[in-house]
């Protein structure tokens, strides 16, 4: 494995994630009949944040390290994903590795949130944890069905070895739902609710640390969307050349993101207890899908 095989996807993810966010802002602005900021606005914001000195509310190590761990975890998660024909760090059981590394972004967010005596950051951390808790079963069922269907838990192997069946479509639907919730999109953004809890954990961050954290969250979203996009594109593009697959993946991620943003724009934020209830309902429904899958359909 050459070093560039890691460096290229990593830099790609780091660059595209903020642009994607900028595009989302533009789409949202159109829905709201506004001009909206330029597509590179998120990048401008990010660069200005990264150049600013933070003001630290504490000198606790966990608070200061959390943004970096979050960013590294989000990027590390990107390394196990397939990009066209390339998967930089491929293990045959890497789905759960991916899942846990993505979860580390949340863990960094939560630990940082709880590391301060501040009910705002605490509430953010608290909500993020509950959100993860309630969506995990849905995600688990989705993975389970995909694993039953493809006989594998390898991210770059599974999409290519799915057999078309009713349950697999439902499973990808469940995966999409889980990605939506994990990504913290409205109405599931209670953990970063600005009007309620001042963006939760981020409330105490400033300057460079805030920039790094925001970047990490954007990369996390991107990585999750890429996962979903891969499960949609790869099964349909067997035998395509690698670059074409990659471009299709990118297109799919953009399309999914625009759809997500449009849904976001048409919803209010759910309270955390409502979100938990909703996730539970989806989980119960997903059990039916699992039943269907285990019957071989």
């Amino acid at each position, binding site marked *: 494995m050459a070093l560039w095989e890691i460096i290229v996807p990593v830099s790609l993810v780091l660059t595209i994630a903020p642009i994607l966010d900028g595009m989302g802002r533009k789409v949202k602005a159109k829905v709201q009949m506004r001009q909206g900021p330029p597509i590179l606005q998120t990048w401008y914001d990010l660069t200005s944040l990264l150049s600013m000195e933070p003001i630290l509310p504490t000198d606790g190590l966990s608070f200061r390290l959390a943004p970096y761990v979050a960013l590294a975890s989000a990027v*590390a998660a990107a390394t196990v994903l397939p990009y066209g024909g390339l998967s930089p760090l491929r293990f045959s059981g890497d789905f759960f590795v991916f899942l846990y590394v993505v979860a580390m972004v949340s863990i960094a967010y939560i630990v940082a949130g709880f590391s301060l*005596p*501040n009910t705002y950051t605490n509430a953010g951390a608290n909500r993020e944890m509950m959100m993860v808790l309630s969506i995990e*079963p849905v995600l688990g069922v989705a993975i389970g069905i995909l694993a039953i269907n493809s006989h594998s838990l390898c991210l770059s192997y599974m999409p290519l070895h799915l057999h078309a069946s009713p349950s697999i479509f439902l499973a990808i639907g469940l995966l999409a739902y889980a990605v939506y919730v994990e990504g913290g999109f409205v109405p599931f953004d209670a953990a970063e609710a600005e009007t309620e809890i001042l963006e939760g954990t981020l409330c105490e961050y400033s300057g460079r640390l805030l920039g790094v954290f925001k970047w990490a969250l954007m990369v996390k979203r991107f990585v999750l969307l890429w996962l979903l996009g891969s499960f949609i594109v790869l099964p349909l593009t067997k035998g395509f050349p690698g670059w074409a697959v990659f471009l299709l993946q990118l297109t799919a991620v953009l399309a999914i993101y625009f759809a997500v943003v449009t849904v976001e724009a048409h919803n209010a934020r759910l309270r955390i207890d409502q979100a*938990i209830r909703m996730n539970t309902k989806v989980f119960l429904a997903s059990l039916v899908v699992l039943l269907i899958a285990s019957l071989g359909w």
Partner: protein
Amino acid sequence: MSLTENLMIMVMGLYGASVLAVVPLRRSYGRALRIGHAITFLASLSLLAFTVEAWLRGPLSFSWFGVPFHVDGLSLILCLVLSILGMATSLYSPSYMEVYERLGRGWLYVVLYSTFMASMVLVVTVSNMLWFLFFWEAMTLSSYLLIVWEADEESVRRAGWRYFVTMHLASTLPLLLAAGIMYSEAGSLDFSVLASSHLGLSPLLYLLFLIGFGSKAGVFPLHFWLPDAHPAAPSNVSALLSGVMIKVAVYGLIRSTCFILKPSEPFGFAVALVGTVTLTIGTLYALRQTDAKRLLAYHSVGQMGYIWLGVGVGIFFIAKGGSWAAFGVMAMAAGLFHLVNHALFKGLLFLSAGSVLYRTGTRDLNRLGGLGRLMPVTALFTFVAAMSIAGVPPLNGFMSKWLIYQSTFLSRSGWFVLFGVFALFISAATLASFIKFYTAQFEGSRGEAVGDIREVPAGMLAGKGLLTSLCVLFGVLPGLVLPLLTDPGSAVTGVSVRIGSVWSANVIPTTGAGASHFNPLLFVLVLVVLTAAALAALPLKKSSRRGRIWTTGEPVPSADYGLRAMHYYGPFEHHIDWLYRTGSRVADGCGRTVAAASAAYIRLCRALSDACSSVGRAVSRAGAGYERHAGEEFLDEAIVSPIVDIIKGSASVLEDVLSNQRLMTVIALAFLTAVVVILLAGGV
């Protein structure tokens, strides 16, 4: 005699020596503890040597004084755990036990500790059902006495009593019955004879073992004693209870159902199901605890569920055989890996909770906070342990959970996938709970119970450091222990599984579907490099300005600002409140059943006692002093009182030996005698 056998003799000798060494030190609390634990440390070290030596040499059998022993991979896994935790607690205890100095009896503590450890070593190595039960009972008894160490606390006495009754009714009794059934069929209680005598696969036997070992392991619905009993004990003992003792039950389960009986698919499924239910319920209950040790105890239940899930899936697929046999071996190895890992991080967590208790005098998470700055090393160790148990890469908990996921999700069975889903969900719940455990104690503002305190003594840190380093080591290099862990499965199936070499640390379980591998070392490297790169590219200057915590403009006292442990995850707990309500009803029911059963038992015993007491009183009135206590709920007293009454005859001698010792000791000795009497009678 081989070196291995000599090492075993040395282990037992050292435990014996520790007892002999401390008996003369009855008046010197500290010295008894230091000397006693120095010797038990050596004993644990010898045990480690024995484990390594025995592993390298392969299975061996020997016999002492007519007691047959057999040591194979399964035994060695437990020996490994015992030796590591033995070392850790031996290092930790001398300082920690200062907390209990007011209770005195340091020598007795060491005696019980050694008895407990030795009995566990013997349980996992002996190869005769009768002796197994004998040591099993000795383990239960010594652990009971350690649990009720703080017997002047009403709650502790109750917890201990509950433990005692449950163990006898739900563990010893079923196992005795099972032994009886097997004896009646095979005519012998030797494991090898039993294994070769093709016992009929009677569901009853499986059920009895399931109940007998399940109640000891604390699986649902027989877990209700555990969250009371484990926190009641001193923390170092809790570490052993949660770290090792309940694992001995897993040993017993595998030994009895895979080696003595045949692995069976329905049984494997039942174990996996019980495991899933247990891990779900145990952990969800743990989620809302705010007492540090109670929280950990509930997690012991939950994590035991993971172990059972792995082992259950293993048994299922081993029984299924064919191309799935290797998959089964790997699944069982996953369960056993989690057993080892749980021993490490749960031991560590109990020791951490003990450290906080040692310094602050409380284990109420609501009253703690901000300890990270005062006890930085403990904070770091606790953080590693918390992340391990939550399964965060690259720590050991992640590796064993990853293996469990592989063995459930790749099973192509809807049920096992569902179990896996629950395991995944509960992994998040564990994370939630341990983030609370860690942050409520070590982060945030100083809690009301936190004064000017400092780090715990070096001895305690050393004990925890040992476990911490192993948590990391087994996470990054699981290849170190995986060959040992696959051994039991391989021994049963005869299928050997290829594990990557230790240094490349590939985990390659051969599954029915093909290989599944993961290289934690490489992945950790990537993670570390990325973090370092982020830190290097966007460094945080030391000179960064300090600000105050944002209170939205109006000052708020920091003690009032920030959630307490009881406030964590409120909406989620509210959401699953039905579970808690049902659970508490079930627990109440179980508690009532136990209470009713024991009350009946007590009445029976009292009737016997009354009959005997006339004889007894005639012999001596020396024991009259403790008749006052008869009204209390001391079941053991009721059980043994007939015998005690007889023994009262020699009470003057006992009074002399035990001078100012409490009633408990008298009972302990009496009960040991009773067990010997019963067993001898049974053996005849």
